[in-house]
């Protein structure tokens, strides 16, 4: 069984994003970019499935500007077998929308016929939390979102999901779509020898046109602004002062 893992290049999670003065977006010039953290978890899970002998090949795919190549290489260095970069022009705004990404991934899946597609639950830049569910719909396949445990047995994948009330488990017929949550695993760091080895792993360069997918956005961003700022308040000296404040707030008798 092949496993397909979509990986997105996003702002590094340690960077505090700054809104551009002209209100057109977030300033990404000279900002550290990394693989979306949930996608690292997805790559790790796919590699573990391969190490367990469940998966035969791990293919990663990224949709983005030329620099998304780095994201592909990171995944290859972690242990993925090959990569596909569907390159978009650098001026496509920040990123391609989830619906168009899902359509491209559907086209890739039609070619590659993976048993599992493992995505991140959410890209930490657009915070959409849509792509995996959309891909599942377009493929007409079952979905196990927000996974904290994934077990493959025969032609079934059992997914434990992190939901509002706790945990839920679903059994899905393969091929299936899984999206990762934070507790699924702890992604490995790529070793230096593996980073070197990754340089010679295959990376296919494609364009959206190769798949006949229109990536024109459906949502128009009219404005991007800063959220209302909170300012630091006061510090109290001791517990008695804090008790007085809680009483004043009406939450303590």
């Amino acid at each position, binding site marked *: 069984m092949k496993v397909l893992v979509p990986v997105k290049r996003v*702002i590094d999670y340690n960077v*505090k*994003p700054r*809104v551009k003065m002209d209100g057109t*977006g977030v300033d990404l010039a000279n900002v550290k970019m990394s693989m979306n953290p949930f996608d690292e978890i997805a790559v790790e899970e796919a590699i573990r499935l391969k190490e367990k002998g469940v998966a035969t090949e791990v293919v990663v795919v990224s949709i983005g500007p030329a620099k998304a190549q780095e994201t592909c290489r990171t995944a290859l260095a972690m242990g993925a077998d090959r990569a596909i970069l569907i390159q978009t022009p650098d001026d496509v705004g920040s990123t391609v*929308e*989830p*619906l168009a990404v*899902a359509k491209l991934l559907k086209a890739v899946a039609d070619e590659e016929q993976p048993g599992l597609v493992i995505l991140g639950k959410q890209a930490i830049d657009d*915070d959409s*939390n*849509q792509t*995996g*569910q*959309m*891909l*599942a*719909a377009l493929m007409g396949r*079952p*979905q196990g*979102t927000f996974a904290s445990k994934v077990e493959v047995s025969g032609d079934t994948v*059992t997914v434990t*999901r*992190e*939901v*509002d*009330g*706790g*945990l*839920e*488990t*679903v*059994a*899905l*017929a393969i091929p*299936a779509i899984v999206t990762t949550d*934070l*507790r699924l695993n702890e992604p490995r760091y790529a070793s230096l020898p593996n980073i070197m080895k990754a340089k010679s792993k295959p990376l296919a360069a494609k364009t959206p046109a190769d798949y006949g997918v229109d990536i024109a956005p*459906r*949502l*128009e*961003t*009219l*404005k*991007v*602004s800063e*959220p209302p700022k*909170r300012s*630091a*308040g*006061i*510090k109290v000296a001791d*517990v*008695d*002062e804090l008790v007085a404040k*809680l009483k004043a*707030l009406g*939450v*303590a*008798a």
Partner: protein
Amino acid sequence: MKTLVWVEHEGGALKDATLSAVTAAAKLGEVHLLVAGEGVGGVADAASKIAGVGKVHVADNAAYAHALPEAVAPLVVELMGHHDAFVAPATSNGKNIAPRVAALLDVMQVSDILSVEGDKTFTRPIYAGNAIATVKSNDAKLVITVRGTAFEKAAAEGGSGAVEAVSAAASGEGSKFVGAEISKSERPELTSAKVIVSGGRALASSENFHSVIEPLADKLGAAVGASRAAVDAGYVPNDYQVGQTGKIVAPEVYVAVGISGAIQHLAGMKDSKTIIAINKDEDAPIFQVADIGLVGDLFTIVPELTSKL
């Protein structure tokens, strides 16, 4: 515009998140509801009483029992033949179902809206809430998820919607519900609590979390939350996590105990009315957003505070 709001329910009762979604939908136009599930007559009756509701479509079928998106999405798509917008709360179930509907309708979903600015224009948070985007949809139909803390709850009483059974052929093969481990608690629910006490990595163990955080929460009648670090370390279950990728909360009072205030955590709680932080590091970022801060060791401060309340 005719909207269709997906009604979230559990154990025969409506979930509060539905009421916020109704408020958002009402800003767009006429509000219709969809109650899908098994044995949901009571839920449908309750739903029909929500203020401002026009019609309640009820799909009572075992296939809809666990809100599996493979079954619910096609049902919604069928009803969208005569609705203009599909609205769901941005809960784990809503987020599971709505994008599946959107893709089937060939629509780009607008996730987690904070406000309705016009017929097809909304604001939504991006980059962990460090930026707010105003977006306009150019699709023929709308699919929206609604951030519960950003909209008042519609009144649960006062409406008189007409209840109508939907006879859709249930589908949804390929996915089977196996089971659930739902946390049981006497405490208020995180997303609707007036007061929340949250603990972080500093609690250092599950025992400490329970013996330090819970008595304070009990005194304040508060819900209990946690940072990702506390959840990852196994001090509390996953559903306690507050943040960008956990629950979004906005209580009257949020008490952060031994939490540093990473942007991912702030994203989930910085709309709280009053933020109180207890941290031994006076430079911890949490103090930049806290209205009231107390610098010191939580293991002495919190028990003393609890005893003095």
